[in-house]
Structures are given as structure tokens and as C-alpha cells.
């Protein structure tokens, strides 16, 4: 039986051949300077930054910081900007990589936190953000799109509200990078954008990225950079300001190839492919009486996520049956975003999440629909 990967929101699969080849090629050449990638010929770091800057409309590639994961990028900003006596605004749609660093700051240094909730269409209202701001607000941390519902947030409007109050905005673009266009230079105010390289950007796991608007963010992780070793202190300039230690060079080589690939096909086309598959899924599910699509699921399917429940089945059991009986991989449970389903009728104990991507074909969707049809009445 063919295996079907419908958990693209966790990590994309399969990776484009050129990504696999780029990782492989990195291992085929001896590193001239093992600490930082060496002589330029086999150094993927600067070219990867350039590719990412081009994709995100960042004028100066020095503002692209390469880190081990989106989680590291989010922690870096939250750790640096949320200090004792501060207030943070975030939302119930966030992933634990935002919620937990904030919860730890709340527990450990007593910061105040306000959670804003989405409306019935799954999006956050700029007015809710406006109402949540206080004079002591030092950070607004919001997702560009929920990894549970796929709802895309009105980031331009949200950024305007934060900018008008002179509060930095941290945007988690892990689910949108490579699927929904985002031009950093067009967002007003002081905006940080964090995202993973291994999802829509098609790179290998182990590289995350942070777009920083300036070199004012305090340094939290410092150490070796392979440069200016005689200095007592870590270099203050971007991007090394926030990059310490040996980077994941093969991973960055793979991400560079992934971003080039995304550029070549085009973010709009990639988003449209997902939206088309999502529509096919929704159409198929709507006629099945035993499937309940979550109301917060966004009409705009570019993120490629469809959350639902199956009458009479626990979400985890649906995941188990799809994997073990039908060789279809989906994700079930709370998806590391435990508050995202709060307030829905019946307070569901999680959802089944199907997520599609570049590697998903029409017949993958049809196999899933056939499998779901056979759960009816059982």
C-alpha cells in the first residue's frame, strides 16, 4: 500500500531533489574552515541569507539571522524583549514555541500577559489587539497563520496597530513561509519575523530563521563566531550578533536550495496549489455526514490545513487507524497549540489535522476521502 503524507504542516515531504543534492554536495567537499564553512566556495550561509532576503523583501541580508529552529528564533526575541515589569500581548492561536517562552517569563519574572482570541472566522481583530495594549506592553507576539486552523491573520493591520503604539511585533511565520507572500519591508513598525526552514521552504530540519529590523535586540547567546577572536565580547553587528557556535552548514545548504526552488515556482503558485487541494478536501468532506469541519477553519486555504473531527471517533484513534490501516499520515491532538480550539462547541479534545503541500497530489486527497468515507457508521 502506498504511504501518503498529509502532515505537511509538521514538515514538508518529499523534499525537492535539489535540496537533497545540496545537502549531499556539502558533505562531498572538505570544509576548509570547519568552524564557519570556510572559503566561500563551500559556504552556503551568505547565499542562503541572500535567497531568504529576496523572498521576504528584506533590503539588507544582514537582517537575516540563521538559527537552529523557529523555536530558537521566537525564544530569542521573547527572552530579550520581555523584561520584569513588562506586559506582552499574544493570542490563543499560538504554538507552544510562543506560549511557553511567555509562560516561563510570566512564572519566573512576573510579567503580565494578555491573550487575544480570534473571531468566528478564525482571525484576530486589530481592534482586539488595540484594546489589549497597555503603556507597559513591550512585545506583541502573534502568528501569521494558525497551525491548527490554517487561518491567515491580517498582519498588515495588526502591524499598524503595534506600530502606532511603538510596540515591537514578533510574527511567527512558520506556517506561511513559502505559501503566503510576506514582504517584511512593507510592514510598518519594528517587526521581527521568525519561521522554520523545514516546512514550506522545503529545507531540512535544523534551521530556523529570524528577520530582525535593527541591531538593537539584546544578545542572549554569545560565543564563538570564527571572527575577531581576540575580542572579549561577541560581535555586535548583524547577523553575527545573534549567531554563535558552528552553524548547521549542510542544513543551510539544503535550505538555500529549498528557497531557490520556492522562488522559482513562486509563493503564489505554491499557495494556490494548497488552496486547490484544500477545496477538494472540503468539498469531499462536506458531503460526509459523519465529518465535522471546524468552524474556525479559514476559507482561504493557502496554508493547506483542514481541521476536523469524525463522529463517534476520538481524534487520536482516527490518526491511528489512518496510519495503521490505510498508510495515511495525518496529525491529531492539540498540535502543540493547546488553546487554539478553546471556545469551540463541545470544547473538543483536539482535532484531526490534514495538511497538504507541494508534495501532495490530487489522488493523495482522494485516498484520504475514501478512507474517511469508510469510517461512517462504525
Amino acid at each position, binding site marked *: 500500500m502506498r504511504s501518503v503524507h498529509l502532515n505537511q504542516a509538521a514538515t514538508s515531504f518529499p523534499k525537492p531533489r535539489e535540496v537533497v543534492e545540496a545537502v549531499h554536495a556539502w558533505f562531498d567537499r572538505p570544509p576548509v574552515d570547519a568552524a564557519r564553512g570556510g572559503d566561500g566556495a563551500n559556504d552556503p550561509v551568505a547565499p542562503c541569507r541572500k535567497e531568504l532576503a529576496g523572498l521576504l523583501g528584506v533590503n539588507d541580508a544582514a537582517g537575516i539571522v540563521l538559527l537552529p529552529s523557529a523555536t530558537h528564533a521566537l525564544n530569542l526575541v521573547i527572552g530579550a524583549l520581555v523584561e520584569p515589569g513588562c506586559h506582552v500581548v499574544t493570542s490563543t492561536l499560538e504554538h507552544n514555541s510562543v506560549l511557553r517562552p511567555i509562560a516561563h517569563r510570566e512564572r519566573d519574572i512576573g510579567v503580565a500577559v494578555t491573550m487575544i482570541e480570534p473571531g468566528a472566522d478564525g482571525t484576530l481583530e486589530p481592534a482586539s489587539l488595540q484594546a489589549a495594549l497597555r503603556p507597559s506592553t513591550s512585545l506583541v507576539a502573534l502568528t501569521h497563520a494558525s497551525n491548527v486552523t490554517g487561518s491567515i491573520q491580517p498582519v498588515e493591520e495588526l502591524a499598524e496597530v503595534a506600530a502606532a503604539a511603538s510596540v515591537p511585533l514578533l510574527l511567527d511565520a512558520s506556517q506561511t513561509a513559502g505559501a503566503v507572500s510576506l514582504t517584511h519591508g512593507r510592514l510598518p513598525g519594528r517587526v521581527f519575523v521568525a519561521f522554520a526552514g523545514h516546512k514550506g521552504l522545503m529545507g531540512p530540519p535544523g534551521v530556523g530563521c529570524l528577520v530582525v529590523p535593527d541591531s538593537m535586540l539584546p544578545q542572549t547567546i554569545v560565543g564563538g563566531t570564527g571572527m575577531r577572536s581576540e575580542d572579549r565580547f561577541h560581535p555586535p553587528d548583524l547577523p553575527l550578533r545573534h549567531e554563535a557556535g558552528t552553524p548547521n552548514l549542510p542544513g543551510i545548504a539544503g535550505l538555500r536550495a529549498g528557497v531557490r526552488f520556492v522562488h522559482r515556482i513562486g509563493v503564489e503558485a505554491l499557495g494556490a496549489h494548497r488552496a486547490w487541494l484544500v477545496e477538494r478536501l472540503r468539498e469531499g468532506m462536506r458531503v460526509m455526514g459523519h465529518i465535522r469541519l471546524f468552524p474556525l477553519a479559514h476559507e482561504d486555504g493557502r496554508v493547506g490545513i483542514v481541521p476536523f473531527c469524525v463522529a463517534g471517533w476520538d481524534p*487520536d484513534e482516527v490518526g491511528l*487507524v489512518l496510519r495503521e490501516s*490505510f*498508510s495515511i499520515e495525518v496529525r491529531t*491532538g492539540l498540535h502543540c497549540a493547546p488553546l487554539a480550539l478553546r471556545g469551540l462547541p463541545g470544547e473538543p479534545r483536539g482535532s484531526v489535522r490534514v495538511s497538504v503541500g507541494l508534495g501532495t497530489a490530487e489522488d493523495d486527497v482522494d485516498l484520504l476521502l475514501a478512507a474517511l468515507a469508510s469510517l461512517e457508521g462504525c
Partner: protein
Amino acid sequence: MPRFVDLRELESCLSHSEAKEIALDEPVSVELMHRLASEGRLQYFPHFPRPYFRIDHPTAWLIQGIIGTPRLRIQLFGDRRAAALERLRELIETPAPSDETTKESPCHT
């Protein structure tokens, strides 16, 4: 007769569901499924490409498995979990009576 060769905790997204996986030295048969169902309510889905079953014990456990794979997923409930696990081991490792029926039944038996 299958043997219980390993027991491992399964990672679960929901902390209130404590799931484990039992590895067996042979694939789960229809006969083993019925034996386990002697202490619980069986729901069997023979029409799935790889037949799936679940057995709900009234108080002590939930067993989920696929016919033909050497694994069972279990969740234990209540305060006597160690005793429940021992009872499951006994049920699994009981030699199959030669004349036992291996009738298949549709879902929701």
C-alpha cells in the same frame, strides 16, 4: 502463542491519555483478538485495508490493534494498572485452544 517482548511508553499530545505499546513476537491474529475480547467490548473493522479492532474493558483498559502486525496499543485506567498489565500479559500468552473459533464479526460487535 504470542509472547510479550517489549513495552514502551507512547508519546501523547494529551497528557491525560497514557498510552503504551506492547511488542509481540508474532503478528496479532483474529484468534488473539477474540481472546482479548473475552474481557471487554470488541469493535472490529474487517473491511479496512488492514483490519483494525479496539477492545474496551469496562474499567481497566483500552486495547487497539491491527490484525497482522506484532503490536498492540494499550491505555490503562484506574489505580490497579500494574495488575491490569499483568492480566493482559496472561491473556496474550495463554496458549490458544485448538478448537477455538476465529469467527470474524462486523464493526460494533
